[in-house]
């Protein structure tokens, strides 16, 4: 009788453990998907804020620069207060490890001179109207993730803006 009971108990325990493991994996998958969507929502909001900021005050916006090999957004020092746009105290997503922030570069040099004669006033840079400025905006949102080796998870989003600053 005892061996039979032990076998049945072992089978039941195995079933329960398997079920628990499956539920745990499902739970983690769902949590990860949910977090991805939430971070993306926060990221898009931060990017819109930064685009607005550089659009309304392009000349007063804090800028960062790359080194020719590494782009500005991939240089850790550029995310400091002096060279980035931080939304201090703003929490866009639960569990945020840092405030949402943006690194903004003036990349007007990437514009190609006009050769078709369509441009207006041509000065300074050969073939490029000086009133055109191009900015690259990179937003970052970072949330705490104890299960990750570095303790956080982050997402970045980027956009290019070409502004016509006639003043």
């Amino acid at each position, binding site marked *: 009788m005892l061996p039979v009971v032990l076998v049945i108990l072992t089978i039941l325990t195995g079933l329960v453990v398997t*079920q628990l493991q499956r539920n745990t994996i499902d739970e983690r998958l769902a949590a990860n998907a949910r977090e991805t*969507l939430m971070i*993306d929502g926060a990221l898009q909001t931060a990017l819109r804020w930064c685009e607005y900021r550089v659009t309304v005050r392009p000349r007063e916006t804090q800028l960062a620069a790359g080194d020719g090999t590494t782009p500005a957004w991939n240089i850790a020092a550029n995310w400091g207060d002096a060279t980035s746009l931080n939304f201090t105290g703003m929490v866009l997503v639960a569990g945020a490890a840092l405030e949402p922030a943006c690194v903004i570069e003036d990349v007007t040099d990437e*514009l190609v001179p*006009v050769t078709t004669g369509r441009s207006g006033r041509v000065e300074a840079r050969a073939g490029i109207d000086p009133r055109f400025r191009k900015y690259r905006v990179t937003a970052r949102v970072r949330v705490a993730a104890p299960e990750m080796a570095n303790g956080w998870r982050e997402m970045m989003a980027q956009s290019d803006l*070409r502004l016509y600053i006639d003043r």
Partner: protein
Amino acid sequence: MKARTRMRPGPATPTASLAYARSAGRTMIELIIAMAIGMIILIGVGSLYLSSSGVSRLASSAGTAEDSGRLMMFMIGDGIKTAGYGEVVGAGFGRGGETYFEGPAIRGCTGARMVDPFNPVAPNYTCAGVAPGDQIFVRFQSRHRAAAMSDAERDGAQMRDCLGSPLNQDVVLGSGPGMGATVQMVQNSFALNAAGNALLCEGVSNAGTPAQIVPNVVDFRIYYRFDDAAWALAAGMQTNVVPTGGSIRDAAWIIATGAASPADPWQYVFAAIVCMTVATGERGVATATNVTRCPATAAEVAAGTPVTEASTTGQLRRTFMEVFTIKSRSTHSPAISPI
């Protein structure tokens, strides 16, 4: 002697006495009762487990359908929002075409499939045949070209297709400020399989052999926000500076409309409405006979009321519908065609 024997029936030796004591403690009646109680407990626990497992399976299945739907909407929506993206490099006053992007940003088919959209030499976006659900096709620049950075950094920042592949279409730009430059484009196509029960994804890396990315997708429809006012002005080469909400159309209408005009009607599409219905893998779990579905016509989308249909499979269904603006295409207004 007989009476004494009855009163003290035990044998004389100690071993025999012990064996007798054991047999005296477990009678057949006791064993049967113990087994009966054990069976009752086992049946109770077993049925509880099966019932709990069934509920758990149903919840898990519904949760999986929900997660799959949300993730797919996120992935498809991301592609639509990025459609037409190219690094801004032009310094001219052109209303469009001032980027490294060239070619169609978005295309679609209603109840049909494109003939050969991934052909690197002569892509054919013509819709042909009859197929379940709709198809949507989007393109955008995937790899930085203008930005000053090393190739390793470009690889790291590269946008990938719906399969996560970095293999993209190499396009030599034929016009605009980047004329002659080679840029990489992501091309993604989403559609149901022939059986109409799974969502397929096709990119440059698996052109011609779409890969299943989500099972149990039973409906997939795409509708478009079309700027009628801007389209009306296009005939006279005029532009509509402020885009309007316009009408809701399907791909068949847009293609038919464009057939009689030299202008490209897809340039006047500024948002895509994606609808997807995901069913649970488990059958026979839903008691309701009416289940959700996607709107079958643009008129149903415009009406905005939930639509249902009868189902006999007993599968639970979740229908997701979301509007995605095509916001990365570089024009003064999403409705203005580049000249």
